[in-house]
């Protein structure tokens, strides 16, 4: 039984986790950097411990500081959120050693899927098809692997996920330089500089399956479509993924559950798949062994609190539902609201929030740490919050989202709110089922319209 959780994260996800803890009557301590001591999460938590200076390398990515904070707080569990140390084996092992429950997959599973090269291997073993790719440990190996899979290709962080440290290489000339930059980003973001290469499939859809396992049994919680991305960062997600044949959707569900069962997976996880619409088939991309940014759209369509389920399986309880007991209904869409100037090549926009007015009402959820006076520091990602709408079908969800976006007002930093408004009105997105190449076209179209 978990009574006291150390939340080792920041921003909206820290707030999100604290809310569930409060609802469950669990005592909370937030582990915060110096830049976040006055954040909403820091003030919401029962206690707050400063774990170091603002740069993540010196605070949120420091296993020793996080574990020390948990021991000081006398917390019996650590929730790592997403990003930072959420899939870090060293943290999972250090928790075991300190007698603290790590709310996440086991250290062995984190190794099996967190190391993206090993994950590819396990996927193949479990019967999932993968995109051609291989390792790039040094310049020579990168050259050899690239020659094998051809261009264009992606450089991906072995310790990555969530699209960080992922870069497109169009031709051989750009390979070495891009690998170098990706290595630097990977080191900074994950503390693991290794990268690998994978063939770039330009016209696929990014669809993922949410799974939940207790170490023995495993169920799926449906699909999410995350094809609206810029530089592999998701901007819009929806559940369920629209316009998939029933047969393909069922096959994706079963493959994801099959993979999780092969791993004897314990915890909440996401199996990311690349859907080739023309061939009506899919490939394994990676598995994320953590709660994801876009989890609220899944919560909306199946009526669950996924953080509460994470805590339950971390306590060693069996799943509280069978697959048959999960009922899917309606449609949910999420827009990620970022502090960036989307009309100026998405330049990041740190600063201080002066106005933060959000839509409210039934079918609308705003997950955010932003309030008037809140600081948006330059040290972390640009996510200000997530606007999630839920309605009986996709069309009415779209209508709700358009209207809800109009009611959002944020001042003090630049945001991508108007980008979302335009996107939600675009014909192609409204029709549903766009691929990952679509967003670039959309940006070109809007830039052109502006120029006219």
């Amino acid at each position, binding site marked *: 039984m978990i009574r006291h959780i150390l939340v080792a994260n920041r921003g909206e996800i820290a707030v999100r986790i604290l*809310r569930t803890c*409060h609802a469950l009557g669990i005592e909370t*301590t937030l582990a915060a950097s*110096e830049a976040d*001591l*006055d954040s*909403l999460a*820091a*003030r*919401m*938590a*029962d*206690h*707050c*411990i*400063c774990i170091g*200076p603002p*740069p993540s390398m010196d605070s949120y990515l420091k296993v020793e500081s996080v574990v020390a904070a948990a021991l*000081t*707080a006398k917390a019996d569990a650590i929730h790592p959120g997403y990003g930072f140390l959420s899939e870090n084996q060293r943290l999972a092992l250090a928790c075991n050693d300190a007698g603290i429950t790590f709310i996440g997959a086991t250290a062995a599973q984190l190794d099996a899927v967190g190391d993206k090269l090993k994950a590819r291997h396990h996927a193949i073993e479990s019967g999932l098809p993968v995109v051609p790719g291989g390792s790039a440990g040094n310049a020579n190996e990168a050259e050899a692997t690239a020659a094998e899979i051809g261009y264009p290709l992606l450089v991906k962080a072995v310790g990555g996920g969530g699209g*960080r440290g992922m870069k497109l290489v169009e031709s051989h000339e750009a390979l070495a330089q891009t690998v*170098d*930059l990706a*290595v*630097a*980003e990977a*080191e*900074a*973001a994950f503390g693991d*500089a290794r990268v690998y290469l994978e063939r770039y499939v330009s016209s696929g859809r990014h669809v993922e399956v949410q799974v939940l396992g207790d170490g023995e049994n495993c169920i799926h919680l449906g699909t999410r479509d995350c094809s609206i991305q810029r530089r592999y960062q998701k901007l819009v997600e929806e559940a369920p993924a629209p316009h998939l044949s029933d047969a393909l959707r069922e096959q994706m569900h079963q493959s994801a559950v099959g993979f999780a069962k092969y791993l004897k997976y314990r915890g909440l996880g996401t199996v990311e798949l690349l859907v080739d619409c023309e061939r009506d088939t899919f490939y394994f991309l990676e598995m994320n062994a953590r709660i994801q940014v876009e989890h609220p759209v899944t919560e909306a369509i199946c009526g669950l609190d996924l953080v509460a389920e994470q805590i339950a399986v971390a306590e060693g309880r069996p799943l509280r539902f069978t697959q048959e007991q999960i009922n899917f209904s309606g449609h949910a869409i999420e827009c990620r609201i970022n*502090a*960036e100037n989307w009309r100026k090549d998405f*330049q*990041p926009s*740190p600063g201080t929030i002066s*106005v*933060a*007015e*959000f*839509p*409210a*009402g*039934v079918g609308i*959820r*705003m997950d955010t740490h932003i*309030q*008037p*006076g809140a600081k948006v520091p*330059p*040290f*972390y*990602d*640009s996510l200000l919050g997530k606007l999630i709408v839920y309605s009986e079908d996709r069309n009415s969800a779209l209508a709700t989202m358009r*209207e*809800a976006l109009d*009611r959002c*007002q944020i001042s003090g930093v630049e945001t991508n709110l108007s980008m979302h408004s335009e996107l939600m009105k675009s014909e192609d997105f409204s029709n549903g089922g766009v691929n990952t190449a679509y967003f670039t076209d959309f940006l070109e179209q809007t830039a052109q319209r502006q120029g006219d």
Partner: protein
Amino acid sequence: MFLNDDDVNEIIHQLEAGPFEELSLQTSRFKLKLRAKGNGSWTKSIEDFQETNLVNPGQEAADSAKEDTNNTASSAAEKNGHFAVRTPLVGTFYRAPKPGAPDFVEVGSQVNQDTVIGIVETMKLMNSVMAGVKGRVVEICASDAGFVEQGETILFIEEG
């Protein structure tokens, strides 16, 4: 005790039972503003005032004592009218493409307009900084892995 979506929706539900279009409520713990936008749609603005319950105060003060003293002295290069390369963004400055790799430029390096002279990491993105002019690097002001403010001078270039 912080307001959640259910609390707000319940309050809105009660407001809708009457002829109300706006609610402003301030207590010592929070400020809540609700406004009707017609058609049963509302907006909310919430400010929570509760203070952080810091378990280990003192550390903050100790750390803030070592604030960087960068960028205060006006250097000789500036007086000589050399071209100042400034950071386009606030963030962390890196002199090399990755840890252990050679620096992009040293004092004395010849650069062109599009020569990369460093990287600024802002919101987890690596942004290359270009020299902007052709010339020779005469002074490097920003320290590696140090914090730079927007517009802060990274280095000086003698044009030509």
